[in-house]
């Protein structure tokens, strides 16, 4: 019975190791329950029935993509007879939040964030990059290279942004662009309501 202490110690280590995942998830406050997603307040129905969206939203998004980009067809006639604009940021993200909806479920399911977001912009992120906050980010990644855009604006095509914007043009607000009537274009809403 001289080995009792070793046996008990080994048992404690063994139980600790076996239950480690449970402790670990307790500490990380994770749960095996699927995320409860808040339903959008704007709309009662999605563009397709929920089971279909849950299983095949990626196919729907790819179909939308091909339809808009390749065929120029931007309207989607949904199962409920409604017509939606086929737009990830314009239609999907109008109701759903990328972080609270897309990312949470993708995280839970262990599906990596798709590369949609490499290009398509989460509208919530857009204001963060606008204004003076973005100015320090526009740094030359290779400082050894001389920046010619300032030195030779004639060559590069004067890309100096904000200071050159003319504010005086708003005086021409009431006059619509000259060929609006002739070719049937809509007027610029920015001009009529600056």
């Amino acid at each position: 019975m001289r080995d009792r202490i070793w046996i008990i110690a080994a048992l404690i280590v063994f139980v600790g190791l076996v239950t480690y995942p449970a402790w670990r998830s307790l500490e990380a406050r994770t749960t095996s329950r699927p995320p409860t997603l808040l339903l959008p307040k704007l709309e009662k129905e999605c563009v397709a029935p929920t089971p279909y969206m849950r299983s095949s939203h990626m196919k729907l998004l790819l179909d939308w993509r091909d339809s808009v980009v390749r065929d120029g067809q931007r309207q989607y006639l949904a199962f409920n007879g409604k017509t939606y604009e086929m737009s990830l940021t314009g239609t999907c993200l109008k109701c759903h939040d990328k972080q609270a909806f897309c990312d949470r479920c993708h995280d839970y399911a262990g599906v990596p964030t798709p590369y949609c977001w490499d290009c398509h912009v989460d509208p919530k992120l857009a204001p963060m990059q606008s204004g003076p906050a973005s100015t320090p980010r526009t740094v030359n990644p290779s400082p050894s290279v001389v920046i010619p855009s300032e030195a030779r604006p004639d060559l590069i095509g004067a890309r100096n942004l904000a200071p050159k914007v003319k504010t005086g043009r708003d005086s021409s607000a009431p006059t619509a662009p000259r060929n609006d009537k002739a070719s049937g274009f809509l007027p610029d809403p920015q001009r009529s309501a600056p």
Partner: protein
Amino acid sequence: MKMTRKEFLKLSGACLVVLSGGEAATVFEGADRNETRATSARRAAKQWAMLIDTAKCAKDKGCTNCIEACAGAHNIPSIPDSAHEVKWIWEERFENVFDSYQTQYMAEARKQQLTPVLCNHCDDPPCVRVCPTDATWKREDDGLVMMDWHRCIGCRYCMAACPYGSRSFNWIDPRPYIKHLNPDFPTRTKGVVEKCDFCAERLAKGRQPACVEACPEKALLFGDVKDQKSEIRQVLASANTLRRKPELGTGPNVYYDL
């Protein structure tokens, strides 16, 4: 029935001709179709085009409203390093835009005059012909040279093929260089070619391209050149207009009124 060797050869030869005839016909038909693909674009129902009045444009020295409007609408980064620049519409000196039209006696100021340049949305676009993935194509219903950034593999054949340098390659991630991120339009990623698309997304909503709307001098005129009653056709009928490098046969659709 007995068959001589000569008869056998004759019969099998005739069989071969009959069997391969259909195949050969489709091959020749296909060649014919390839030949007419370029010309079919010229017969498109609609062809968006732009007319740039260089005199009006020159009135407002230093104005870059069209470039800024385009950058704002399409999330175009402003990268200070010219080797990484991304351009949809930009300015070039007259002598570079129309090198074959300048003379030795032309005033220096005229040679240096900045002229806006952009994708010409050619009738027979060489960029489209070389694209290995069909990521760029000539849209049949309105003649736009479109791009599918989902499909572009970044081989830059189109950049080599374009005689106007209208295409830019994203050597680096453009997002940090975008001044005002517009959520209504995607950005691009590193490794993708991009260019002016005549604001296809605005045309779909019945609006004019951003640069045309932004020009304070109304120096840019946009319209359908296949429509005889369009304003651009009226102006093109009487004005002295030039196109860039028409001798190459690309059929550019951006006209310059000198």
